[in-house]
């Protein structure tokens, strides 16, 4: 039995894990950087430890300090969340070496899937379909050139050592390859400390479909069906859904089986996601495996009824999976929108600042996962995710309608957000038809009018009511310096709510 968990993360995923701990009766221990001293995950935890400065390299990436906090709190397990050290073999190993339980796959599985070229080789051996490509750890540009000619253009140059869209170049014609290799190598070296590259055929109008797997310590592996994540802007997922709107049952069964084979090939244990490219002709190809919980895991939870985070703890405790593949079914349709503090009007730049007001939507079939609330700061140090809004309904059409109502009801004032962009996207006929591919947003972004409309008179009247009321009820101590906002002795009374 696990009794006390160090959560080596921040934001909404730390909050999500704390909630799972509450239900399991596990003590939840948070860590935080100086920038997160007042963050929601710190307030919610049963204990919290400061582990360094705002920069991730000085805090959330400091293995020594994380383990020190775990020791001081008496933790017996560590959950890494996603991002930060969640896919760091060295962290998993250090946790295990410290005598703690790692809520995730073995360091060996992380390593095998972490180097994209190694993963390709293992998948090839396991008969998991791969995009035609070329890989070599020490190939000269000439060898890449010859391989690209063989694979055919357009061809994609990718980094062997990492993911997340970094180090990727699409080369349309032969003449552009040398420059692309140079640029991708520099970017990969900078991002991952590993300049190795590989080539893949570039599949046009491809979709991104991924499969959730769960594997216990007793050789049971199941998949929890697919998530469609083709709505991406610059390789970053924006909206995810399950089921995929364009997968027939036969392909669904095959892609699920392929994901299970991929996991089995590396002796995978715990929750993981196998990502595939789906070509317009219905063929799918292994892309990579994420050896951790995924941002978009809630859509799978809603269509399968399985609590993935609780299952992660159960698996790490040695419990067998409580279901077989035959017990699992997709029911209804779930959609997730990632609401970011970013400004579509200025190229989607992060919009930092205080959330003057955040009222999440609430209604049957809506779930909101968020790490912030009214008054919290969106800082420049971390991902500017405000909330994940997830809806579930019997049909895709119903779920999209529910999402539109949810986005409409979401009130976020104080920072710019992508809410209007999300509403534009889900209402687009191509999205409604379920025919978005991974480059759809780039191709159609000019259709989105980012500039906000002029305020109607009702908005001006509401502002006038606010200004009049604010002037009347402002306390005499005008303590509105935000630096002191968290000190109860100088608390600003800027935020107030009516008795209505």
């Amino acid at each position, binding site marked *: 039995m696990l009794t006390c968990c160090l959560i080596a993360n921040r934001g909404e995923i730390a909050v999500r894990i704390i909630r799972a701990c509450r239900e399991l009766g596990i003590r939840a221990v948070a860590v935080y950087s100086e920038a997160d001293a007042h963050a929601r995950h710190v307030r919610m935890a049963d204990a919290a430890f400061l582990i360094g400065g705002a920069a991730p390299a000085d805090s959330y990436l400091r293995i020594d300090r994380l383990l020190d906090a775990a020791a001081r709190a008496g933790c017996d397990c560590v959950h890494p969340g996603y991002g930060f050290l969640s896919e760091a073999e060295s962290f998993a190993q250090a946790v295990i070496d410290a005598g703690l339980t790692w809520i995730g796959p073995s360091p060996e599985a992380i390593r095998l899937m972490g180097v994209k070229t190694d993963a390709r080789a293992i998948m090839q051996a396991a008969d998991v379909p791969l995009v035609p490509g070329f890989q070599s750890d020490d190939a000269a540009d000439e060898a890449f050139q010859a391989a690209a000619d063989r694979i055919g253009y357009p061809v994609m140059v990718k980094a062997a050592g990492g993911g997340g869209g970094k180090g990727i170049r699409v080369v349309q014609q032969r003449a552009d390859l040398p420059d692309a290799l140079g640029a991708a190598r520099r970017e990969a070296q900078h991002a991952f400390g590993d300049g190795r590259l590989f080539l893949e055929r570039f599949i046009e109008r491809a979709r991104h479909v991924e499969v959730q797997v769960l594997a216990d310590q007793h050789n049971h592996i199941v998949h929890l069906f697919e998530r469609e994540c083709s709505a991406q802007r610059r390789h970053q997922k924006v909206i995810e859904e399950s089921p995929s709107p364009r997968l027939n049952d036969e392909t669904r069964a095959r892609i699920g089986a392929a994901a299970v084979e991929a996991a089995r090939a590396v002796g995978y244990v715990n929750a993981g996601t196998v990502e595939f490219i789906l070509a317009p002709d219905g063929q799918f190809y292994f892309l990579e495996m994420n050896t951790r919980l995924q941002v978009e895991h809630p859509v799978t939870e809603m269509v399968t009824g399985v609590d993935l985070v609780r299952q992660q703890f159960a698996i790490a405790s040695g419990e067998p999976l409580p279901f077989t593949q035959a017990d699992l079914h997709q029911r209804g349709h779930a959609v997730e929108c990632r609401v970011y503090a970013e400004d579509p009007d200025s190229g989607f730049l992060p919009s930092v600042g205080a959330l003057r007001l955040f009222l999440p939507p609430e209604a049957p079939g809506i779930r909101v996962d968020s790490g912030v609330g009214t008054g919290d700061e969106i800082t420049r140090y971390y991902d500017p995710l405000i909330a994940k809004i997830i809806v579930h309904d019997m049909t895709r059409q119903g779920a999209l309608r529910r999402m539109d109502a949810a986005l409409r009801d979401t009130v976020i004032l104080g920072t710019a957000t992508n809410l209007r962009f999300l509403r534009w996207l889900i209402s687009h006929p191509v999205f409604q038809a379920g025919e978005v591919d991974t480059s759809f947003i780039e191709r159609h972004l000019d259709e989105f009018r980012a500039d906000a409309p*002029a*305020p109607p008179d009702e908005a001006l*009247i509401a502002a*006038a009511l606010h200004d009049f*009321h604010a002037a009347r009820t402002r306390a005499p101590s005008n303590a509105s310096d935000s630096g002191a906002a968290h000190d109860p002795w100088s608390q600003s009374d800027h935020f107030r*709510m*009516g008795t*209505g």
Partner: protein
Amino acid sequence: MFTYHSSDQRITVRLEQRADGTFRATVGERVYTFSAEAVEQGWALAFPPDGERLTARVADDGESRSVHLRGEIYTFTREMERRNRRSSASGGGGGVTAQMPGQVRELLVAEGDTVTRGQALLILEAMKMELRAVAPADGVVKRLLAGVGDVVSRGQVLAEIE
């Protein structure tokens, strides 16, 4: 009276509470009657009082105002009353400004009236107190810039004395 700027537009909003508790707003030239009720960080409004209901959420940050209404967020700025404008007006001997936000309860003079320094011009009600706005100097009421029922903000010019 409140003044806002949106894009290159300058829009004034004048609020007035009526005897039955409902409101009248004049936005530029347009007049609305509505009911308003304070709700969490915003207002439940109905245009007119038994008509369409909507909830507006409002946040301010310095001069910036943002309003969430019918799923859309509108951002604009408030034109703040300038200290120097007020002082220059009174420097000219004639601007009478509201000392606190409130509602005009009664006008005691009319345009063209001759007044003496210290004479009460109008009664303002705010925070359950009555406040008399007085003439800063002897003179003639050139303009009355507020009417009975008007809601005025701190520093707003109420009358000009010449």
